């Protein structure tokens, strides 16, 4: 069986729809992981011990196990406790939490490296601890780690292919559907790879653009 790319155009719209899902899931999970990362970082640094310890444990487990395994836990685990979410929501939660943990590690380091004087000055001018964190320390910390967070987001796009395994019709599963109908795995997986590559380039461009805008000019 040789290669025959002439079957591909017929399934182009399925693949494009898959691309739209991939982009949507990636953006949603990226936002979740960004704000979740900030939340986790603050909880892990400033929360009472009863919050700090479970957060450390969760971070440790999420960084020490494969994403695919975590997706199975979240997807099937939610069903087990009676929450029947659509697969794509479970996928977004899984991807979002996974990368939130990685982002949180970056943000924690950044928060700790913001000069102590910033917090002290903010408190002196009458801000509460929470306000000082929210308005003074965290904005500076997050800016400092925008580039590595951007890299995480680009990794997230590629890892979004994993949610095909729990049945989300994104690009990878769309390609599999087309293969199911045509028995042409090479052609369609290669097409999917090409689409991923293009989305990846686009995403890198957007991420670098955001970086330039948000990062503090040095």
């Amino acid at each position, binding site marked *: 069986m040789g290669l025959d790319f002439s079957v591909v155009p017929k399934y182009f719209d399925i693949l494009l729809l898959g691309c739209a899902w991939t982009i949507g899931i990636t953006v949603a999970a990226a936002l979740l992981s960004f704000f979740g990362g900030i939340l986790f970082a603050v909880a892990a640094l400033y929360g009472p011990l009863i919050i700090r310890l479970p957060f450390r444990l969760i971070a440790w487990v999420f960084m020490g196990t*494969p994403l*695919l*395994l975590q997706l*199975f836990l979240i997807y*099937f685990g939610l069903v087990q406790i009676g929450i029947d979410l659509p697969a794509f929501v479970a996928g977004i939660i899984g991807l979002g939490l996974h990368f939130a943990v990685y982002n949180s590690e970056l943000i924690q380091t950044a928060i700790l490296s913001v000069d102590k004087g910033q917090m002290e000055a903010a408190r002196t001018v009458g801000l509460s601890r929470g306000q000082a964190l929210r308005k003074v320390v965290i904005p500076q910390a997050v800016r400092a780690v925008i580039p590595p967070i951007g890299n995480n987001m680009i990794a997230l796009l*590629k890892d979004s292919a994993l949610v095909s395994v729990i049945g989300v019709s994104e690009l990878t599963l769309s*390609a599999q559907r087309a293969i199911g109908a045509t028995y042409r795995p090479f052609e369609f997986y290669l097409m999917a790879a090409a689409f991923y590559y293009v989305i990846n380039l686009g995403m890198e461009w957007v991420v670098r653009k955001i970086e330039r805008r948000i990062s503090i000019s040095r």
Partner: protein
Amino acid sequence: MDIDLMLRVYPFFIEAAWVTILLSVLTAILGLICGALGAAARLSRFVLVRFLGAAYVSLFRGTPALIQLFILYFGGPQIGIQLDAFEAGVIGLGINAGAYMTETIRGAIISIDKGQREAARTLGLSQWQTMYKVILPQAARLMVRPLGVNLNMLIKATALVAAISVIELTYTAQRYIGSTYKPFEMFLLAGILYMIIIYVTGRGVAWLDRKVQIN
């Protein structure tokens, strides 16, 4: 939590963990070979070779590893490459990891001060001698820690071969989640084994890193 069930199935998870370890070791070896070749290509004097090296890195880092595995395993037979799932897993993941290691190795080599090369050349060492006797020994020390990060990612990436039905840890967990409907317990079993593997590897890398540093 169903401890009884966990006690009943854990031997299968241990067995699967050995498959994950074997996969990781073979993938790491292939990844290092590809990474070394990739770095050599990226640093080559010839434009075409440099371009090939850059294309390798860009293509394999710019697309999902899962898709690469699928192309190799499911698409391979169409272009005359017949591999069983385990072989496809090792080769696919190894080439993928190699793209990341290429950048690690290259990064370490180019971070060696230019004066080292110039001094070596001035002393009459050839291009090759300069590389093997002066640059690489220094760069190798810088590589240990970032390659350790690559290794950590690679071990977790071996879970992907579950999607082509290699019976490793994640596949085993997935299968038992499907048959027992106890996702948490199965996650716990597989998760603990992954964390042991990751922890031990991490300690090994840290030990090697201390060993190669000169103080």
